[in-house]
């Protein structure tokens, strides 16, 4: 079981606070429960808020190290791995609880994202990702993982 999300945060300006939008969502396993598009967007916004709160929770955090917020969330039925890039883009990967090396998987997806999404001149930021090259490589990558 795996399902994958990318949340992109907009750059905050004077007249617009930082917003968070879901730019990509894909399931890699058949038969997962689906939500409506709107629900995905709401959940993405909620997660962004929760994440922002968790970055401020730890009073003992060393001041020179930026707080990372939620990295892993585990429940009985799934495990959520969150990876945040320097610009605030978040990669969320939902897997089964016993899946190993989810941080490595997400790092690999980040690499693909940096190559096939960010280097594509036809992609504009904060827009949903519709890119054939990215899709092809991501599916190939995940197929290798799921077949293990």
């Amino acid at each position, binding site marked *: 079981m795996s399902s994958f999300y990318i949340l992109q945060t907009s750059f905050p300006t004077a007249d617009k606070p930082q917003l968070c939008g879901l730019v990509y969502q894909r399931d890699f396993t058949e038969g997962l429960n689906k939500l409506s598009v709107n629900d995905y967007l709401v959940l993405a916004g909620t997660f962004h808020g929760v994440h922002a709160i968790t970055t401020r929770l730890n009073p003992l955090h060393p001041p020179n190290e930026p707080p990372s917020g939620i990295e892993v969330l585990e429940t009985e039925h799934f495990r959520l791995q969150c990876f945040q890039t320097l610009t605030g883009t978040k990669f969320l990967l939902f897997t089964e609880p016993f899946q190993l090396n989810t941080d490595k998987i997400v790092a690999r997806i980040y690499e693909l994202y940096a*190559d096939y999404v960010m280097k594509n001149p*036809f992609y504009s930021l904060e827009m949903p990702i519709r890119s*054939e090259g990215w899709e092809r490589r991501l599916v190939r990558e995940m197929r290798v993982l799921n077949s293990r």
Partner: protein
Amino acid sequence: MASSQPVKPPLAGQPAQAQRGSQAGLKYPSSGKTIYNRPLNRSRTQELSQASFAYLFGEMVSYAQKRVTGIQDLEKRLNVQGHPIGLKLLDLLLYREPPRAQTRPLNIIALLQFITTALWRHLFSRPADALEKSSNPETPDEYMISDNEPLVNQYISVPKEMNQLNCAAFVAGIVEGVCDGAGFPARVTAHSVGKGEEGELWPGKTVFLVKFQPEVVEREAYLGKS
């Protein structure tokens, strides 16, 4: 920026403020020697970062995309961006050939072979994947160079509504520049052919169609007889 006058490095003792304003972001080596002072063969085997090229090329495509009227216009602009590179590369690569082979290509086949090997190796570190002559008897002036995976297109996914576009038009412009510079005026266009059966293996396969001007073919026939 590329002035012929030697650029003086900022003196260490001078207040840096004034200097910074005029040439922000441009760095000059402390010896005062720029890339133009180096021997032409020095960077022969050096390679560039593909990521930085990808960002540069992405910006070139975005730049070409501004104020265009259509896809043909956009390809034309990319072609024009590549053309002067081809003109210059012809000179540079001939200069770098070993002295005995340092002759200009004098017929179409020699020119195309120079393009698919020397030029392709210089640009992409590998030769082109195929070179064919058009099998159609009505177009004896057309040749096809195919590249299974053009380096410039590696990270580019063209949106569905622009599927006619192939950004390798830039490479086509380079090839056109080489042909024009060698005295074989031609029109070169890039076409995506990675569809259908072959598309499974090489989805980005591109064919560069080289169409020589009629006078080139005429001259070639005349030279062949004598």
